[in-house]
């Protein structure tokens, strides 16, 4: 009898506990479903090998490069000199990589997303993450507008 009573009280206690918070109940529910298999994130090397398809993360999904726009490129150079040269020399590695030859390793979309959205690129983009590991620092967001970044891209085409 007594042992039955113990079981009864134990049920009461459990009932109160679950009524009280509900936290443990939720956990149990979650436990019933296995998490969906996560896709293994791309490594830097894999992404680099596939760079022509890497657009990065950010506001830019498509860039059309037409004839070189010299006026836009000049504007881009001015912006680059003012906002970027503390860390990037045009033709040699300073604190970050040089933009000369960048179109042989990055898409225009990736470049603009890196300029406009450097924090997320460093955390989530496989190439961005690889660069963070290499250069030890998240690139500063220098507050460029999309037009500014497009002009800087045009300047990079002249290098």
């Amino acid at each position, binding site marked *: 009898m007594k042992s039955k009573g*113990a079981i009864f*009280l134990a049920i009461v206690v459990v009932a109160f506990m679950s009524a009280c918070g509900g936290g443990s109940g939720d956990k149990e529910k979650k436990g019933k479903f296995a998490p969906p298999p996560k896709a293994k994130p791309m490594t830097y090397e894999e992404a680099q090998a596939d760079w022509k398809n890497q657009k990065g993360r950010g506001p830019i999904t498509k860039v059309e490069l037409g004839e070189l726009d010299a006026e836009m490129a000049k504007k881009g150079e001015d912006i680059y000199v003012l906002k970027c040269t*503390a860390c990037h020399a045009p033709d040699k590695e300073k604190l970050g990589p040089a933009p000369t030859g960048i179109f042989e390793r990055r898409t225009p979309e990736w470049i603009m997303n890196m300029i406009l959205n450097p924090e997320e690129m460093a955390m989530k983009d496989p190439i961005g993450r690889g660069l963070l590991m290499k250069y030890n*620092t998240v690139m500063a967001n220098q507050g*460029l507008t999309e037009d500014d970044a497009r002009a800087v891209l045009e300047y990079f085409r002249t290098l």
Partner: protein
Amino acid sequence: MRSTTFIFALLITASLFIYSGCGNGNSTGGAMSHSSAAEKVYVAPGEYDQYYEFFSGGFSGQVTVHGLPSGRLLKTIPVFSVDGEKGYGFNEETKPMLMTTYGFVPWDDSHHPKLSQTEGVHDGNFLFINANNTPRIARIDLTTFETTEIIEIPNSGGSHASPYPTQNTEYLVAATRFSVPIPQKDVPIDSYKENFKGTFTFISGGQEPGEMDIAFQILAPGYDYDLAHCGKGVSHGWTFFTSYNVEQANTLKEKNASQYDKDYIAAVNWKKAEEYIAQGKFKEWPSEYYHNYYSDKTHTGTSTKMKGVKVLIPSECPGLVYYLPTPKSPHGVDVSPTGEYIVGNGKLSADLTVHSFEKMLAAIEAKKFDDEIDGIPVLNYDAVHVGTVEMGGLGPLHTEFDGRGHGYTSFFISSEVVKWSLETFEVVDRIPAYYSIGHLSIPGGGSMKPWENGKYLIAMNKITKDRYLPTGPELAHSAQLYDISGDKMELLLDFPTMGEPHYAQGILASKIMDKQVKFFRLEENEHKYKALTEADTKVVRKGKEVHIYGTMIRSHFAPDNIEGIKVGDKVFWHITNLEQDWDVPHGLAVMGANNAELLIMPGQTETLVWEPKAEGVYPFYCTDFCSALHQEMQGYIRVSAENANTKMKWRLGDEAFGE
């Protein structure tokens, strides 16, 4: 069996424990109200407060910004006192802000933060605050939360009744709390009655940054002018100042300035003053005062010594000033939201005296004068008095209003907030304050339109005692937040403040938050010693002065190695923060500097002066943790003997320059 019994007992205990811990639903009323008060002030992590509340720092000289209803401290804005944390008053750019006719004044006592107004409502453009000791008014720009302008008030001693703007911020006002010889002269102190005078000052340019100026001053009898409020609505065009010490005591004022039954509220018709100024009926006095202005383009303050003020003499300007007799050394004078009632808080009394603006105009019209003092008519008390709020409390100081027809008065001696009806002048509720409340603040409660019809009230208390964990002899002054939206006031929260939270004003966050400057654009930087790119960095010697044109960005200085400095040099570190992102300030600390750090906002240039005393190589570094490589953001500066021939050289990495 025994073990089963034991399990039983354990389970019963556990179930009871869990049951009672299950919520406050069945607990005492006290616990209920704690939980409901907690809910009302809880701002979840990552969420925002509903109000900005600007507190004066009192004898800290600064302004602190808290969020309401949480009470969280958001920022300290240096205003009248130097602040090593921000380099304010230490760097070359902000030193001019603290210039006065007495020279550089590194401290003051800040009292009344007042928001700018348009049509009697807080517009969220600027905050003004007065310095009590060396009389001044400062402007804080509410897009940057920086002090951008300070004007000195001449012919004043202790500027307490200030800045109290008019309905459209046409003027800010000031009055002398301590009468002094005006103009100043060397006289015996006991010639007070003969030589000491008061002034009322009107300052123009409140809505125009950089344009604050002394519009005119009015010479008044030598009383102590304590507080002010400008008329609004029906009383727009008038300003009211309280006085005490009409006894004109100059010693043991505690007793001798409290002899008479009544003192005066001065009613100043400033529209009439404008007419007299336009007619040229003023005296031009050669008084000097400083005007200091800080530009967010040059990132530099400039001091200008001004000379000459226009002074109006009441005996020569009829209709300019009237006195309203008011019992018991009135402290605060507060004007109801419509502008009709002028409330005198007689601090040595139990009661509040309410005058009617309409009755005042009628009494002036009918010339119901009992006396005249230095050309100022004293109006008949019964002709202006409309009601007395009999409180049964002690020591009323200040009154603010909700938008629902109530006044709320702080009682210092009996330490309570008393709510009363503007219709019946009867007390409808009261609640204790912990302890010795001075000012109180209802966001918008001094304007024509209290926000949300008066939802919160903040008590600013002079005494803390046992409210917090004890911290030695000195305790943070305490503030309390009350919910006043219902019939009964409810205490929600205690929170500590900085210095003396003398007064505070609050504004809905939505009026300010969206126009915040996040960084200064490099393209717009007009600082004389800016370096906008690393290619512009250089070190220039001019005799014994050395000017470093430097930059900083995550995470290096340019240049970061400097040689050729000599003992006896005066080194100017002009450093530009090249970041163009929100919340990325960098600091500069130089070993042995006799001033402070620089804390430079993105896009800003600031200058630290450093005078090395001995040969050696000294590190300098960034103080504000800026990136994963913050610890590496450091450089060296070499100091040679005065007569050494060390060449001037500077470098960053492979880029080296020099003589």
